[in-house]
């Protein structure tokens, strides 16, 4: 992959890895090498990510597509006198945009004009995955077809003749099995052989005459950001984004009104043209597959047998309802046993550090730095394990089944089937759950899931509520209050999700069309690559905010005199006391609520400090709470704590997943107001009843 390695080594005069690093940095700057943008496109479930990982050798940069919180992976590979800049596009079935992901992939191919497109095709279902190629062939960009999963096709008794296929559509086809690293080098050899100076010869789909007639009607030079003929075919196919582009051009005055009218009448007169376009593409696919594909025997995959259990309305659901909490719990437990140990050590070592370095430094290390580092380590481990489990389930094909079973219900509130696991995680830790929402397929469903999550009570909030209710009420009442409250939380979350899905505009993608991939053995390389990417993104985007946020919270609870009883936090709590008295809380409870911003678990600890009792003695804390607060006030506190803004970690992740503070702050403000309003209502209603 690095033919120039030796040369670079002599230049650098140091180790090979250093040379490789240098090569990475200088690649763009090396003169005489032409940079070639390669888009890796493919339908979902074709092994596109595996191919991308193999091509770039796991050394790629991850980030977001500009303005969208959708993953973008990019890697550079130097070969001969060319540097390939590979861009991994989100999976897309065709070039009509039905979701933000498909829109990104489409716009990149059509408007950003990559030099070459590597189209990944699944050999086990060639006829279906060639559809994207049929659409790509209508454009002028050179195409290399990566015919992946040849092994799976063989197992299913299908013989795909790559040479015949290549001859039929006149495009280079590389048969490969990316899982076993077969054919990867061949892709590069084919890329090397592509002549970028001359247009690639190909046998493309012959579109009906209506398309070229409509293309003539479009103004020239085109005011649309798309090639004319392509735009014409998409107008006929009713692509909302292209129609939007036409409307925008009309609004800007670039497009004349009479032209628009002509296009409009043409479209209304040729409604059948869309069917003709689709028909032609199908002919093209049939033509291509006629000689190249041969079904030797009809081996049914064992997936169908498994699906009888996993998609069963009763057993499938039971398994899913067991599998989802187990997956979520397992991830958190594994994380707690690894990274969590650092956090526990930091908490336990606190008093010792304080004893060793009395004064501000000791307190800063013991209460600020060490727990902050501990939290981040714990979160990294938990997020890593959770994603490892997610990607494992996704890779073996089970996540799609869970999605199938829960989709109907979750779609009603605007989330998707795959939101089930993040939502379950939300009951344990909001931070991890929000960071885990990238498994949800479309950006829109993800947005709804993210907005729902802060409303769900995490384990810390449930614990606080349990201590408060148990302190005041008999066990039975306390349990009823807790369960009732959690149900109300779920309702609030659903309402928030529903509200968002009603207000956010969306392409017409109502109704589920979902592929159920075959069950297959997991590829740990892909899983590991995904986990690495997620951890990297968390560290880059959220960890810093969490770290400094925790230090600031420590500072306001320490200064000016070095104890929480006189700190700025206390003064702020005092300042808020009038508001607190409206919901039956004195300043101590307000300070406890404020400090819960650090992490929900420490609310009780703060109260223990304020009541001057030992934090480990729950009986004493309960006693103190009992004496300090009325039952109505306790209820109001529990309600406030359940709906109050999420902890700092969640907020940092929330911002990184929503993309901006502009979207995050209204949500937090909404939650804050809701928490206060609900607490106010609860307090006054409870005062009347109790």
């Amino acid at each position, binding site marked *: 992959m690095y033919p120039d390695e030796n040369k670079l080594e002599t230049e650098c005069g140091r180790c090979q890895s250093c040379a490789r690093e240098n090569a990475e940095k200088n690649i763009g700057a090396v003169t005489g090498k032409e940079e070639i943008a390669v888009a890796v496109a493919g339908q979902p479930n074709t092994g596109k990510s595996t191919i991308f990982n193999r091509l770039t050798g796991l050394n790629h940069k991850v980030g977001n597509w500009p303005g969208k919180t959708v993953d973008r992976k990019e890697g550079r590979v130097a070969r001969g006198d060319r540097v390939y800049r590979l861009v991994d596009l989100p999976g897309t079935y065709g070039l009509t945009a039905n979701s933000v992901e498909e829109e990104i992939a489409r716009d990149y191919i059509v408007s950003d004009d990559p030099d070459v497109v590597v189209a990944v095709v699944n050999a086990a279902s060639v006829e279906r995955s060639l559809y994207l190629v049929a659409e790509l062939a209508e454009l002028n960009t050179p195409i290399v077809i990566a015919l992946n999963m040849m092994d799976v096709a063989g197992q299913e008794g299908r013989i795909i003749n790559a040479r015949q296929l290549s001859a039929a559509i006149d495009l280079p086809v590389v048969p490969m099995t990316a899982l076993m690293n077969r054919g990867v080098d061949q892709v590069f050899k084919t890329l090397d052989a592509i002549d970028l100076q001359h247009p690639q010869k190909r046998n493309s789909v012959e579109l009906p005459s209506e398309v070229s007639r409509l293309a003539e009607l479009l103004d020239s030079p085109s005011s649309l950001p798309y090639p004319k003929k392509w735009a014409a075919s998409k107008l006929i*196919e009713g692509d909302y984004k292209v129609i939007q582009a036409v409307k925008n051009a009309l609004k800007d005055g670039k497009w004349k009104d009479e032209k628009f009218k002509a296009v409009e009448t043409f479209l209304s007169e040729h409604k059948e043209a869309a069917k003709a376009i689709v028909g032609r593409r199908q002919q093209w696919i049939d033509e291509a597959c006629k000689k190249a594909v041969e079904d030797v025997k009809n081996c049914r995959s064992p997936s169908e047998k498994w699906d009888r259990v996993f998609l069963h309305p009763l057993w499938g659901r039971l398994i899913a309802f067991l599998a989802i909490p187990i997956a979520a719990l397992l991830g958190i437990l594994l994380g707690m046993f690894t990274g969590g140990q650092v956090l526990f050590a930091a908490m336990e070592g606190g008093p010792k550090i304080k004893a060793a370095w009395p004064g501000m430094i000791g307190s800063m290390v013991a209460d600020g730095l060490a727990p902050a580092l501990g939290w981040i380590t714990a979160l990294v481990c938990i997020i890593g394990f959770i994603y490892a489990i997610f990607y494992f389930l996704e890779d073996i094909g089970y996540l799609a089944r869970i999605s199938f079973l829960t989709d109907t219900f979750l779609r009603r509130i605007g989330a998707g089937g795959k939101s089930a696991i993040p939502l379950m995680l939300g009951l344990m830790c909001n931070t991890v759950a929000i960071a885990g929402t990238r498994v949800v397929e479309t950006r829109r469903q993800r947005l709804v899931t993210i907005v729902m999550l802060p409303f769900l009570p995490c384990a810390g909030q449930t614990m606080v509520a349990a201590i408060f209710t148990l302190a005041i009420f008999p*066990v039975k009442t306390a349990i009823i209050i807790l369960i009732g409250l959690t149900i109300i939380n779920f309702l609030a979350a659903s309402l928030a999700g529903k509200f968002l899905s009603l207000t956010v505009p969306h392409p017409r993608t109502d109704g589920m069309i979902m592929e159920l991939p075959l069950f297959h053995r997991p590829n740990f390389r892909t899983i590991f690559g995904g986990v690495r990417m997620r951890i990297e993104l968390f560290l880059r985007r959220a960890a810093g905010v969490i770290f400094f946020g925790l230090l600031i919270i420590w500072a306001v609870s320490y200064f000016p005199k070095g104890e929480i009883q006189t700190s700025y936090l206390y003064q702020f709590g005092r300042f808020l006391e009038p508001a607190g008295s409206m919901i039956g809380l004195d300043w101590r409870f307000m300070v406890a609520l404020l400090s819960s911003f650090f992490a929900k678990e420490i609310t009780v600890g703060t109260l223990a400090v304020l009541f001057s009792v030992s934090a480990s003695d729950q009986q004493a804390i309960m006693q103190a709470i009992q004496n300090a607060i009325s039952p109505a006030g306790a209820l109001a506190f529990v309600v406030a704590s359940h709906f109050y803004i999420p902890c700092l970690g969640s907020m940092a992740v929330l911002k990184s997943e929503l993309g901006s503070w502009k979207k995050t702050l209204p949500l937090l403000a909404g939650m804050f107001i809701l928490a206060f309003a609900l607490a106010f209502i609860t307090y006054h209603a409870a005062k009347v009843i109790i």
Partner: protein
Amino acid sequence: MFNPGLPTVDGPPATAQGDSAPLSLQNALQSFIDQQPEGIASAAELDEMAYLPGNGVYRFAIKERFLEWYVEAKTGKMLKYGFDSNRFLMEKGMLGWVHPFVTRLVKTPFEFLFIFLAITGLYIVFYPRKKKKNRLRTGCLLDMAPGEKLSFMGVSEVTLMGRLAAVGLLPGVPIQMLRIRNRGPVVILVRHTCLALGRDIGARVMMSREAA
């Protein structure tokens, strides 16, 4: 722990109501001990002595051991005695011997389940009536039987046609119905790919009449 061989009791017995006043607790207890009741050695072991005015009886009980004796309030005659198996099962069953709270934990899901079952029961009764109205369409994907093979004809909306074409649902393509239920999405096999389609989409997909 519990006395073997004693009969089981099931609540207080019925007694004839009369005008005469009941015995005092002292007298009743005395008369109870005099009858040398089975399962108890001395009155000191009793941890409950209660007059049940509705039944006109005194109840003497050792709550801890779930033993009860009923004595007629007016005459002091022993009516019924034995082991209260009902209370025993309620309190010690369902892991109650570990802790009463554990019982609650075990029972609560079942209570929810019963509510759920009640609702589903009603739903099963009323749902078919509601559905019959919608079932008039013919020739759509939802009318296929599991295992049946037909070929895809098309959909009327342009945008949906594009979406379906991209996942392989093109005119003339054979479709095998894999699973279809009374509700929820359907699963079909199209060109070596399993697809799940929502019911609303399935209703819009037209199929050709001939078998593929």
